[in-house]
């Protein structure tokens, strides 16, 4: 890699370290019940189907895809907010699947989450200093200079600690998201799962939160699992990227591999569809317009799940599911006809 950006250097530095979070063959099916009085199980929503990836200390892994691809379910399953159907979630060498609430509490000191909606994820009846203090209280750590910690945490994320006795509704969207970040940082975690942390914010506000997350990572050595649908934000903040489609990872690699040598047709279509705020460039670009819609996850297509919308699809795509392996592109791609293409 010729890139010498700080993020790339950081990625190189951390690549030798063992992964702090490792997801192996994770599957999550939600039962689908009939509408009658007796709720009979009529099928399964295949939300996440056999995905594996790892996250190393200090790095940011972007999980991107469109709505319904299973990226948020993946996040929730990692946090054990919903139990996985099968598969392993190894955090610092321990498998979290099947652990009791009490065992999980200890783990969650190092594994925290920031949710998308800053309006729904903060208790409207609690002053923000109590919201930020709550994790410390739950873990019995508030006695140890808890008040000072809360004040400092609020200052760290760019809020005025004097406003600690205000309620969430008195803050703007961007400020609320900062409160959520302060709460997640309270226990000094090692990994943050960020589930669409900036997509509800206006761009000028979003930029501030993105910068804050980057600076915190640099200072505190946090690892981020960054779940998002906005490919521009992901390019800005992530070291490595995994692209999801209908519950599967279709392509994964370093940021430059994905953005400069995208090899899966779906990744290519996604990248070509993102508008760039540059009039001359944008007028020249050609969009790959996909036909139709994402198929239902209740009854996913046989073979390659993308074949129903793919312009390269042939008979083999319906018969044989392409494995996520390196096919000579330098990074794993799940496509029988993978071919790198530059779209920028």
């Amino acid at each position, binding site marked *: 890699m010729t890139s010498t950006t700080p993020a790339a250097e950081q990625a190189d530095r951390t690549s030798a370290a063992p992964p702090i979070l490792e997801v192996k063959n994770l599957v999550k099916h939600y039962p689908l019940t009939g509408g009658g009085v007796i709720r009979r199980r009529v099928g399964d929503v295949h939300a996440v189907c056999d995905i594996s990836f790892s996250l190393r200390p200090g790095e940011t892994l972007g999980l991107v895809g469109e709505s319904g691809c299973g990226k948020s379910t993946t996040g929730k399953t990692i946090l054990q907010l919903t139990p996985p159907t099968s598969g392993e979630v190894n955090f610092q060498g321990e498998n979290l699947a099947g652990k009791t609430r009490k065992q999980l509490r200890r783990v969650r000191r190092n594994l925290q989450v920031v949710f998308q909606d800053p309006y729904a994820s903060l208790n409207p009846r609690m002053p923000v200093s109590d919201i930020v203090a709550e994790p410390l209280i739950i873990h019995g750590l508030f006695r140890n200079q808890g008040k000072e910690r809360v004040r400092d945490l609020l200052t*760290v994320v760019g809020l005025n600690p004097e406003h600690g006795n205000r309620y969430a509704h008195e803050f703007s969207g961007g400020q609320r998201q900062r409160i959520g970040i302060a709460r997640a940082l309270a226990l000094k975690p090692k990994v943050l799962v960020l589930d669409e942390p900036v997509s509800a914010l206006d761009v000028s506000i979003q930029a501030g939160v993105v910068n804050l997350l980057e600076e915190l990572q640099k200072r505190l050595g946090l690892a981020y699992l960054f779940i998002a649908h906005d490919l521009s934000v992901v390019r800005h903040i992530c070291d490595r990227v995994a692209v999801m489609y209908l519950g599967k990872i279709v392509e994964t690699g370093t940021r430059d591999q994905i953005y400069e040598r995208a090899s899966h047709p779906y990744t290519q279509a996604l990248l070509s569809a993102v508008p760039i705020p540059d009039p001359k460039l944008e007028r020249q670009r050609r969009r790959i317009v996909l036909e139709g819609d994402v198929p239902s996850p209740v009854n996913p297509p046989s073979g390659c799940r993308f074949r129903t919308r793919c312009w390269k699809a042939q008979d083999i795509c319906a018969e044989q599911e392409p494995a996520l392996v390196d096919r000579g592109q330098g990074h794993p791609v799940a496509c029988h006809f993978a071919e790198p293409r530059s779209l920028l």
Partner: protein
Amino acid sequence: MATIEQRAPAATGARAGPVLEVRDLTVEFPTDDGMVHAVRGVSFALEPGDVLGIVGESGSGKSVTSLAIMGLLPRSARVHGEVSFRGRNLLRLNEKELTRVRGRQIAMIFQDPMTSLNPVYTVGWQLQEAILAHQDIPKEQAWQRAVELLDLVGIPNAMERATGYPHEFSGGMRQRAVIAMAMTNDPDIIIADEPTTALDVTVQAQVLDTLERVQENTSAAIILITHDLGVVAGMADEVLVMYAGKPVEIGPTDGIYYDPRMPYTLGLLGSLPRLDAKGAEPLTPIRGAPPSLINLPPGCPFSPRCPMSRPHCDAEEPSLRPVAGLNHVAACHYAEELAGDVRADEVFETTEADLRALEELGQLGTLEEAEPAEQERERA
């Protein structure tokens, strides 16, 4: 007030004159807290066949402007100014006269396609109704036209699909059906209010593709309202940037993007992460929040968030004025200071975390020291 008319001849050459002219449009809503000045003087001219992009963040008044043009605001709204369409001031028309203009000469596409379609009628029927409302033609012919339009906007098997209900359409197809409906009577103007905002990128690509096809196949001028500067970049001929109910910069697209002369536009462009950037460039957040539109202080509404702000900015609100050497107008007392290749991160602060506080937090001792307390609690 320096309006866009001053530079219109230079920008567009000899043309038949604008199809729509908005002059000093203001919209106010009385509320319990006081008067909300949602739109505070918008003026622009739309040339036939052109695409005008109106960009701004939530609450900047861009949607209210479009609703005012269409006469769709609630009765409580106080609308002043002039919206001149083919020599008639739309703000003076009564409901009956407006109905003849709406849908026929000026059509509108809303953000949420599910709420613009009626769930209990087939899509074809709704298109047919839109045609029959303004044209005196046999039903069969209207149906034929409906199918043609669905085909034009890229709906596969249009003949069959026309008999389907909105819920049988995917999000992208619904929005395309709404676009087809806007085209039914070959309008002079189509106003698209955030047409792709609720959609995924691949679906957004389908809709933008359709809008481009509309642009090629009709002579309609398009007003594209969006918060996404990327969407506007590829489509618009002209861009109007709104802030706190007022246009702060108007001009040809390239000029606005490559040579912004209002700090807000510069900051907005700098705050966007770009797909084609390596990721090393810092983003420039704009500190603070847009002002409340109830009690606007005198002076420039952007001044509290502006890194270039000076005492004069708080005393007098700048009006739109031509920018030297450029073909556009900007509302900033110090627009000239942004001449040349000024980068957003040279003007705006980019650090976010309070590093001193972070250090203090570190000095408070590690959380591990408190471990016994936790064990104690668990025993209890």
